[in-house]
Each structure stands twice: as structure tokens, then as C-alpha cells.
């Protein structure tokens, strides 16, 4: 191998190693913003700005920057609201051509929101959590306080030299009340889903960000934990690839 070829090969390997760290930082920042309920910054700073099919699939798909803004911007930031989805188990693959990357993570975490009184489900101040709330507890607080583990599959794209989230797919692993196991919760959640549906106006859900209806249904909706099915291998693990047309999209 000539010196130029060796240098070129070395350059690509160094760049891929550097990219891996940058991609990890981008998705860590996504989760820090989410935990601070700074989701509005996510659309401008984390998501791709020049891809019409930029999207987040969390069971329904939001596609395009305007749709993402509808979901992320002005999310309510209550006193005591805490969202922790912090990343473990990274599997990151940089494309051979260096233009895109794929990542898979598990987030171990928890979420809570305390409410001084039972929140309304509908209307401009409505909160879709509704029937999932516990309470009032011994201090008279309505709340949900959940353990939450999620899986994430992410396509990244390099835009103007910066890595951006292009396609994000979120899949629940387990969710449960602080003091309930996730088997029982999965059964209770089935009932709560129907209570939420019952509480939702027939004409559609209000425009509250957390109630944002998706742009279109998820092509392969993640179920979260259920005792009725084996654990779904979703999102898939990335595999080595040269250019994006060789691989799948999250």
C-alpha cells in the first residue's frame, strides 16, 4: 500500500472514531434537554434541518420540522416534573462514507409529575395522563411516579459538518408505577388506555403538545411490555454499512 493510501485509510478510521464520540454527545444532549423539559431546543439544535422526512416514531410518527415543533415546543414544565431517560448500552455504527450513522441505546430511567389537584383531561389545560394518575396520596398529591426503560434506534445525518438526528424510533421496554411490578402494570395500563380513549373527545384530541396526534400511524407500532407476546426485537441493531441506501431506516 502506498503512503497516500495508508494516509487515506488512517484518516477515515480516525474520522469514524471521532464521529462516534460526536454522535454519542448529540443523543446524550437530546436526553439532557428532555430531562430539563427544554424540548423546544431539541427541534432546532438536535434534529436535522434540511431533511423533509426528519421524524420521531414513538408509536405514532411525527414527520417534518413543523410537526416536530408541534410536539416538542412549549411542553409544560411543572414544578417537580422530572423526566430521566439516561443512556446505556450504546451500539453505534458510522457509515463507511461518513455521511450517516446509526445508533441503538437503552435508557434506564423514571418519570414523575406531581399535581396539586386532579388535572383535567381535555381542554387547553388538559393533560392526557388523566386516568393513569395515582392519588391523592397521604399528602393529598395527585401524581404519577413511574419507572421507565426505553429502547432507541436513531439514524443520524451530517449536515454542514454537524451530526443531527434524522430518524428517531422510541420503543418502551417497561413502564410501571413506583411500587407496582411491570406485569401487573401492563394489565392495568390496558384498562387505562381504554379509559383515556373514553375520555378523549370523538372529534379528536386537543392541541396540547402532549396530546399531539401523529402525522401518520407508526408502520410497526411498538407495544411496550406485554405478557401476551415475546419481547419484540425493536428497534433493530445497526450493522456495519457503507452508504445509507444499503441499510434500513428507523
Amino acid at each position: 500500500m502506498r503512503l497516500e493510501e495508508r494516509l487515506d485509510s488512517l484518516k477515515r478510521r480516525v474520522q469514524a472514531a471521532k464521529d462516534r464520540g460526536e454522535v454519542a454527545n448529540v443523543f446524550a444532549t437530546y436526553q439532557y434537554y428532555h430531562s430539563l423539559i427544554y424540548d423546544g431546543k431539541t427541534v432546532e439544535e438536535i434534529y436535522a434541518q434540511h431533511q423533509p422526512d426528519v421524524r420521531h416514531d414513538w408509536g405514532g410518527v411525527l414527520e417534518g420540522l413543523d410537526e416536530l415543533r408541534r410536539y416538542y415546543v412549549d411542553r409544560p414544565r411543572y414544578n417537580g416534573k422530572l423526566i430521566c431517560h439516561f443512556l446505556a448500552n450504546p451500539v453505534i455504527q458510522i457509515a463507511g462514507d461518513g455521511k450517516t450513522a446509526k445508533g441503538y441505546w437503552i435508557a434506564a430511567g423514571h418519570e414523575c409529575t406531581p399535581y396539586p389537584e386532579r388535572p383535567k383531561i381535555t381542554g387547553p389545560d388538559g393533560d392526557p395522563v388523566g386516568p393513569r394518575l395515582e392519588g391523592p396520596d397521604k399528602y393529598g398529591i395527585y401524581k404519577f411516579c413511574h419507572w421507565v426503560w426505553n429502547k432507541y434506534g436513531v439514524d443520524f445525518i451530517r449536515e454542514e459538518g454537524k451530526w443531527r438526528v434524522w430518524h428517531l424510533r422510541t420503543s418502551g421496554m417497561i413502564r410501571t408505577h413506583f411500587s407496582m411490578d411491570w406485569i401487573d402494570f401492563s394489565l392495568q395500563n390496558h384498562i387505562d388506555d381504554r379509559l383515556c380513549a373514553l375520555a378523549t373527545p370523538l372529534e379528536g384530541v386537543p392541541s396540547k403538545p402532549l396530546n399531539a396526534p401523529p402525522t401518520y400511524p407508526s408502520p410497526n407500532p411498538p407495544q411496550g411490555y406485554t405478557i401476551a407476546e415475546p419481547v419484540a426485537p425493536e428497534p433493530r441493531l445497526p450493522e456495519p454499512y457503507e452508504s445509507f441506501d444499503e441499510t434500513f431506516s428507523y
Partner: protein
Amino acid sequence: MTQMEQADQMLRDARRTADRWELESLFGRFQYYRSLVQGGRMMELFSAEKADVRIDLGNGVIEGQEDLRAFLTSQKPHRGEMHGRTLLNPLVEVAEDRATAKGLFVAAGHDTFVSYEKPDFKEYPFAAYMHKDPEYPLYKMTHWVWYKFGVDFIRENGEWKLWHVRRVEIMRCPYDEDWIDFSITRQKYEILNKFRTPWQGLTRETCGPLNFVPTRPSPEPWEGYTITRPVPDNPRMPEPYATFAETFEY
């Protein structure tokens, strides 16, 4: 760009990329020694040359070589004591000059203290939280605890060292009481701890290891999860920087 310039650029990129993994390992060691209550080994990870080495615990800063060593080495392990600290969500930025670096991490974990005798608060920093077991003849504390850590690293004689560590508690609660309720319950324990502290003032002789005497107050005091405030943006996320003079200190 000449071949020599290309090679120089690659070398810089390769070194900064390698730095990232060294820094994650360094802070992983810090948490490993913490889990084993090996304060002396933790001290070895800090800069030996900087006068302002410090740990900011939110309720006080321990700063300087002497104070930090006294604090870390004053903690002795007890039978059954355990501190689980698992690092998640690393966000690491190495300065362009490679003299310093910054990291933000989350530690998911748990704390355990257990004693056959009624615990003395000078011996057990969380004595107020230790309850008599209803079944077995022992006193115990078994808590879930999640922290955020902001860290400034410095390169000293070619080796990365800890310089400033800022720890902010995300949430803490007993295994069977959620963190919303515990944020209210714990106030009585904090009052008990203060009540047991000699009124003449704090000294190292009269206080237990975590009822410590801080070198100075924390610049952004934080006593843990509360339902009365939004989650604080503290420690802040690091951003890319060239030299330490351009950025903030943890």
C-alpha cells in the same frame, strides 16, 4: 493541505478521541472506588498540583488538597455498606488545546447502610434515615439515588486527572416510598440531623463524615428533588471550547 499537515490534523483528532475514552474510564474509576468507600483511591484520581481541587455536593464545597483529602479519607466502610453508582449518558468535550476537558454524567444507583447497634450519627452519616427492621435485629437504610455529575478534568504530566467535581442529586428515596413523598418526608430527617449537630458550631471532631464542614457554601445550593421548583439546569451541559479560559467551571 500538505501530507504533513494532514498527518498533524489526524494526530490531533486521534488524540482527542482517545482522550474521551480515557476520561470516561477515569470517572468510572472514581465511581468504582466510591462504591467501595475507598476515599484514598478517589483522592489519587484528583490533580495533585491544583490548589482548587474540589467536590461540590450542593450543600457545601470541599476545596483544596487538605480539605478534600480529609473529607474523602474520613469515610470508612462499614459491614453491609454499599453505594451503587452506574454511569449513564456521558457528554464529554475535550478542549482543543487538550489541556482540560469537561464531562456531564448521570449516575443511577442506590445507597445501603446497615448496623447491628443503634446507629450513631457521627459514625453513620445517614443515621437519621436508618430504621429498625421489623423482622430482624438490625437498623438499615436502603435508598434509590440518582445523581448528575459535572466534571472538569485537567491533564497533569501527560495524565488526565479530576479537577472540579459537582454532584447534584436528581432524586433519592427509600426502596418502598416514591421520591415525591420522600421529598416531603425527608425534611424531618434533615431537621433531626441539624438538631443533633452541636450548637457551638461545626467541627470535624463533632460531625460525622457527611455531616461535614464545607470549605465554603455551594454557589448553586440544591438539597435534592422537590415538588416546589422545576428541575434545575445544574450542572450545565459542556459545550465545545478551545481553552479553559473560554468556558465555565463546575
